[in-house]
């Protein structure tokens, strides 16, 4: 007769297996149940209370760039969770931490600024994030490029936009049309002289016909702006002098206000409306 009794041992084993399966089924059912219970959670909330990324950098023992990766990946999930209402309150802080941990990690600056401008609707914050990135990565063209776009499109701050584009247009890797964005921003800002010079440079150094055409159109636009500006000013002086609008542009020359009448880039005259005193170019710059 072998064993305590083979049957007794066998039945004990069976009992254990029953316990095993029973408890397994039980905890799996319980897990499904607890999943349904909604708990107010702020995932990763404790990250908010770390005073700065610098502290975290020391705490991660040389794995700071890995930590940056992990926090970045987490942040993407966090910001893709629309049910967290107040997720933007620490946007700045979180991306500042990632920047402190790995300043040369470019994606977070882009993503952060995107979230800020598009989702949170805070363009100033977006620029703040990008500025941080620019400061730490002066040779990276993409960041001022993005910043320029935000300044131009969202804030309509063309002065700021042209600064950004100027910063990145000569950096390695920047697309050539950055220069054109710069020139355009100058124009929109109102700095017509520099805009003209810049467009001229672009025209002269254009690599192909298409770019030359674009430059030419813009030159037309800038010249028109400069010329019509001067003409308007002259009309104004005429009016002060005579008390009425000139009947035609030639009156300005006869009145010795202007030495001659400027022509547009194509050699055409500017169009004058004697009723309103408005001056404009003969054609649209884009339909030449």
């Amino acid at each position, binding site marked *: 007769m072998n064993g305590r009794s083979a049957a007794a041992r066998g039945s*004990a*084993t069976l009992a*254990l*297996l029953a*316990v*095993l399966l029973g*408890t*397994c089924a*039980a*905890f*799996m059912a*319980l*897990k*499904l*149940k*607890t999943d349904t*219970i*909604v*708990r*107010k*959670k*702020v*995932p990763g*909330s*404790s990250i*908010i*209370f770390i*005073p700065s990324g610098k*502290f975290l950098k020391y705490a991660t023992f040389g794995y700071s760039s890995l930590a940056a990766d992990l926090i970045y990946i987490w942040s993407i*999930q966090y910001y893709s969770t629309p049910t967290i209402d107040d997720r933007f309150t620490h946007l700045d802080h979180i991306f500042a931490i990632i920047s402190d941990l790995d300043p040369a990690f470019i994606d977070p600056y882009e993503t952060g600024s995107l979230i800020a401008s598009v989702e949170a609707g805070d363009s100033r914050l977006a620029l703040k994030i990008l500025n941080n990135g620019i400061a730490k990565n002066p040779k990276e063209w993409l960041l001022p490029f993005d910043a320029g776009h935000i300044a131009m499109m969202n804030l309509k701050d063309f002065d700021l936009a042209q600064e950004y584009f100027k910063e990145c247009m000569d950096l390695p890797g920047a697309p050539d049309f950055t220069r054109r964005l710069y020139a355009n921003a100058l124009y929109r800002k109102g700095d017509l002289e520099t805009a003209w010079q810049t467009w001229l440079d672009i025209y002269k150094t254009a690599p192909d016909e298409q770019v030359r055409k674009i430059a030419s159109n813009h030159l037309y636009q800038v010249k028109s702006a400069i010329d019509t500006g001067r003409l308007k000013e002259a009309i104004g002086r005429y009016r002060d002098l005579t008390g009425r609008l000139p009947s035609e542009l030639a009156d300005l020359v006869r009145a010795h206000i202007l030495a001659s009448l400027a022509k547009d880039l194509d050699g055409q005259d500017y169009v004058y409306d004697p009723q309103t005193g408005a001056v404009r170019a003969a054609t649209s710059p884009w339909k030449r």
Partner: protein
Amino acid sequence: MKIWAIAGITFKEAKRDRILYLLFFFAAVSISATRILAILTVGDRVKIIKDVGLASISIFGVLMAVLIGTSLVYKEIDKKTILTLLSKPLRRAEFILGKFLGLVLTLFVMTVGMGLIFLAVVYLHTSRIEWPLLVAIAYVFLELVLITAVAILFSSFSTPILSSIFSLAFYLIGHISWGLNLLIKKMHAGAGKAAARFLYVFLPDLENFNFRTEAVHGLPIPSSIFLYSILYGVCYTAFILALAILVFRRRDFI
């Protein structure tokens, strides 16, 4: 009862382990140091004290459970003290349960110790004891009980180093269960997703015992989860212990 006899000497033995006091010392330092940390912080000081304090109790508790638990059974086998033990009329199941109980007792004492230091530090800052903190600590203890069972399971057939790695892996897996869920949501329906879903429900979810965030932020806790969490902990622990006993029963001690 024989289980108590084993538990008793296990408690005596664990009490003597220097690792225990080292970890307890670090936990005490960590909790007390939150006072200094609080000065550096931008924001609510008390929150950081509570956060770090509870995290310390949890982390150091887990380290105690793993470091002591993984050598508990292994030492007996290695030093051959188990030969005199198991030749007595002692069932192998009683041995495993006794070891488990002894370590749980030890951890209970340690958790109470760390908890008292923590509550004292909080009291110094807020002049009151908050009920949610006690709940958070109690559930930390429940998590430790489960980790202990896991450590003993691995200790019954593996060396302390490997057992520690496996036990810590269990702990980590238990805390990123939600990550697996996120992944599953992005999967295409099919066999892979079904298998992943099964894995998700089977693998431990230690977040069920984590009320630290709620305690620190003063968030409300739905009352239903208290009972379900305890049951979850009990069932999972029983499962692990049953596994340990099953493995241990047919083992030859060469």
